[in-house]
């Protein structure tokens, strides 16, 4: 019998291709896929979430931000903020069932105000301490109220929930908790707060409200100058109001452009901050 053991060449069962190359291609592909899914689902969720009735949003919000102020000063501050908000709302064509509730948080370190579910607007002490005029405060308030009007909090929540679910599903099919961690954090990064388009829209509407309320838009740009200054002072910890917001300089410029287009005066008498809100 003639038989020999030939030497089998390498590279038939195992490709010599580098594992890291395959890894790079797969991870790149996975990230591109996730990005596409996040963008698509996020967009779908946004379009649907805006149609959720406001009453339902209020139910979801429940007692959000509803902790009552402890002392009389805080009650007075909250009342003054609510009065200002009500004054602004009168010029904003909000649907009748959309009620704005302003809450005050006695935290001097947080220079921020934000809008959340159910028409709740939260204002921090740190912000009030920095406000040069009532006009500037009104600009911030109108900006946050516009978020409520445009249904941004529920849209943001809808996007977060849907994207989170999608990512959990992807991590599930790929069969490992290993993938969970990466995909999970990619998900939270994309689902945070409002996007730039929402912020720009809120700015535009806030300026229009200011023009209607005061007859001029002086003081609006001061808000962005203030935040730009705070940002420069603490480059590592930009104020939360700045996160994902358009560049402060651009915002000032667009205010001027908008005012010019509508014929709103850029100058005018600034209203001082109401007595109750003058915190130093």
């Amino acid at each position, binding site marked *: 019998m003639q038989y020999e*053991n030939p030497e089998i060449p390498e590279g038939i069962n195992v490709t010599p291709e580098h*594992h890291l190359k395959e890894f790079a291609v797969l991870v790149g592909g996975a990230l591109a896929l996730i990005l596409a899914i996040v963008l698509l689902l996020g967009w779908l969720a946004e379009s649907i979430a805006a149609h959720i009735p406001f009453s339902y949003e209020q139910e979801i919000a429940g007692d959000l931000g509803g902790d009552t102020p402890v002392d009389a000063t805080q009650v007075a501050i909250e009342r003054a903020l609510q009065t200002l908000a009500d004054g602004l709302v009168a010029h904003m064509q909000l649907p009748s069932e959309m009620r704005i509730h302003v809450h005050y948080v006695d935290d001097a370190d947080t220079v921020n105000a934000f809008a959340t579910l159910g028409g709740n607007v939260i204002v921090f002490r740190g912000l009030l301490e920095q406000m040069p005029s009532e006009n500037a405060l009104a600009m911030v308030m109108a900006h946050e109220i516009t978020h409520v009007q445009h249904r941004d909090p529920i849209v943001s929540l809808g996007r977060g929930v849907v994207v989170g679910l999608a990512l959990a599903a992807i991590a599930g099919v*790929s069969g490992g908790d290993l993938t969970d961690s990466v995909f999970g954090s990619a998900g939270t990064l994309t689902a945070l707060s409002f996007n730039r388009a929402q912020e720009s829209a809120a700015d535009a509407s806030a300026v229009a409200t200011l023009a209607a309320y005061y007859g001029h838009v002086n003081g609006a740009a001061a808000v962005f100058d203030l935040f730009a200054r705070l940002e420069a002072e603490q480059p590592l910890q930009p104020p939360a109001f700045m996160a994902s917001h358009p560049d402060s300089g651009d915002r000032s410029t667009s205010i001027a452009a908008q005012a010019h287009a509508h014929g709103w005066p850029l100058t005018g008498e600034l209203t001082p901050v109401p007595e109750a809100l003058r915190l130093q």
Partner: protein
Amino acid sequence: MIDLIVFVTLLALGYGFGRMAETGHYRSIHRREKAFRNILLIAARFPPPDLVPRKTQLVAGSAVISVDYFKRFVAGLRNIFGGRVRSYESLLDRARREAILRMKSQARALGADMVFNIKLETASISKGRRNAIGAVEVLAYGTACVPQKHEA
């Protein structure tokens, strides 16, 4: 964030150690395959009739090789995109060759010069359970033919 750091560390460790183990293993496989080349492996069930009568005996070799974190992650991504799971191919290739080499070394100890009726069996240790150690066992067995000493 902590999760991500832990994950990347595990991935790097898996890649580093996995790569080291694989390169070393292949070096050893190549060396021993050369050394055992004179033992013929034949898949046929029976020896040809003209073969002079010999003593036969069962020989077997088994190898269990574990997957590393990196390979498992890459294979997990393959679950989404499909295609050759290259990271597991090298794993199985190593296990298969190692099992055959162990069988051959048993055959050599018996003084055999050929092994007939080679069979390979593969088993997954983890059986697809989550969080279980992903390891694969390959068992190679066959009939070793030991030439009988001719009495002069």
